[in-house]
């Protein structure tokens, strides 16, 4: 999998590259508009992470070029602006997703995985991992071919951890992923514990190995 990260903030792109290294991704970085255009013209990427505000141009123009060239890769816009107009403009131009800065790396990783899955040509929307099989279209999980009855939240939580496998996902990131802005209301992370407890119980009962580890109350890790 080839990724292009168009981001002028070097420290941020460095973090993204380091985090995504764990996956099977080959990451390239473009720090400005010109380099981004050159790279997208010369190579094909499975997914492009695009910052809109670049020092020498608007990232949306890179998106326009990509679409004009009929490139098939996915595009995720990452922007510090988080303006509704920007979001709509980006999505109208054919971006697959929009992520406002600051974001959790685990969230970014999950979004990239989702975009790549959606863009796959072979129509295979299934994710297999040892005894686990995720049908991302039907949003179901099965262990050794046998379906497990998970609630929507439990499924989301499980898939989120799996797409960030072998990395610690912080409680804040989980809370935000599961509840969006609603996370503000919760005084604590009790609801995560509750979901997590149910999820683990169901998976172990279904005969799945207990992959999910709590890491010092900092977060959780799908350890495989």
């Amino acid at each position, binding site marked *: 999998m080839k990724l292009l990260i168009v981001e002028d*903030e070097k*420290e*941020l792109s460095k*973090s*993204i590259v*380091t*985090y995504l290294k*764990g996956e099977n991704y080959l990451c390239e970085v473009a720090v400005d508009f010109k380099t981004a255009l050159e790279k997208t013209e010369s190579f094909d990427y499975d997914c492009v992470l695009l910052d809109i505000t670049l020092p020498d141009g608007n990232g949306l123009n890179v998106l326009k070029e990509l679409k004009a060239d009929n490139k098939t890769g996915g595009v995720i816009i990452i922007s*510090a*602006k*988080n*303006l*509704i107009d920007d979001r709509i403009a980006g999505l109208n131009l054919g971006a697959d997703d929009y992520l*406002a*800065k*600051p*974001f*959790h*790396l*685990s969230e970014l990783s999950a979004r990239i995985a989702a975009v790549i899955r959606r863009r796959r040509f072979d129509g295979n929307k299934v994710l297999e991992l040892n005894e686990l099989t995720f049908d991302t279209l039907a949003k179901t999980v099965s262990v050794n071919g046998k379906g497990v009855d998970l609630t929507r939240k439990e499924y989301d939580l499980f898939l989120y951890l799996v797409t960030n496998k072998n*990395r*610690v996902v*912080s*409680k*804040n*990131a989980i809370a935000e992923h599961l*509840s969006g*802005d*609603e996370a*503000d*209301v*919760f*005084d604590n992370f*009790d*609801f995560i514990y509750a979901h997590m407890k149910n999820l683990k119980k169901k998976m172990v009962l279904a005969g799945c190995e207990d992959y999910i580890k709590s*890491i*010092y*109350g*900092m*977060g959780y890790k799908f350890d495989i």
Partner: protein
Amino acid sequence: MKLLSKSLKGYIVYSVLVLIVSVPVFYFELTSIVAEDVDEDLVAQKADLMAKMEKVIANKPFEYFEVFEPDIHIKPANTKRIKDSTYTILFFDSISKENVPHRVLESIVVLKSEWYNITIRKSLVDNDNLIFSIVTVQAVILVLIIVGLLFITRYHSNKLWKPFYATLGKLHDYKIECENSIELGKTEIDEFADLNTTITSLTSRNHEMYLSQKEFTENASHEMQTPLAVFQSKVELLMQTTPLTGEQAELITELSDAGQRMNRLNKTLLLLSKIDNDQFNVKEIVNINTTVQKLAEQYKNALNQKKLSLHTRVACNTVINANQTLIEILIGNLVSNAIRHNVQGGKINIIIEPNQFCISNTGNTDSLDATCLFQRFQKQTSDANSLGLGLEIAKRICNLYKAAITYTYSDSLHSFTVSFSNS
């Protein structure tokens, strides 16, 4: 007190004083002048009478005088001492059938060794009428002058201060976020023209300041996003490092929480500046009922977690013309406050009425201080999750739609009511 009434008050008091004092003084002065005049007249008449008496003294036909001159009485005097006295006395007038004041000169004279008592009287009724007329006319003229002056001053002052009141009115309606500066009409009075130019330049300077401050908040918030993103990503990478001790994990968790809070604070400040910048100007028909239902659904988990019971009472279908996102933020903020500051197993009531809705909740505090409730960063809780900006945002959104938001506390329920002035 209005400027005009204040300046007129002095005039009125002075005029009334002058009127009260001058009319009696005038009356008495006039009366004494007339009395003096009458006295002189009586004395002259007496001299004339004595000259006539001397001519006819031998016959002493003084009783004839009284026939022709009923006002003159002559009789032999008892006392033998020359004496003049004048006084005023009432006599019954047989013609007008009433007592009439008379001025009397009583004089004891000696003519050719004979003593006579001469009494000459003169009716004062004509003089009194004259005095009364003069004083009345004078009083009327005085009143007319004073009233006229007052009216002229009033009219003139009104006209004179008109530009001032126009300026005041415009200043009163001035909203720094809406207008560049106050444009004031021309005036011929130098002071007011000066005032107007000063105000125009002051407001235009203020507006510029306001804009630059607004721009600063917005830019600062935007610029904060990138370092925050870097911070957050580095904290996440730090989580992945091995080996990791429990102590390190705890520190990292605390860093992550702090980052999350900064992030939320920044987002909220950006939202505030977006509301200020009128970036939510797309209006549509917003149904309060469905918005409340949608939010109740969204907050279901949070409600369950605290075991809160939510009661919604809908009196009618309330719709307003506003921005859907802002109304969702407004109701969302109030509902999330109601959840956050609630007690375990407490309740939340939402009442929707024509043009207003009320969200009330149980809580573990007594009545909150309503004066600083809607100011930013005025937290009345030690809750670290609370930013102290939620109600500020609610207030701003209400201001935008000219709605009133009020807080009341009764029956151990904290209630926030939003009333829209028009639907």
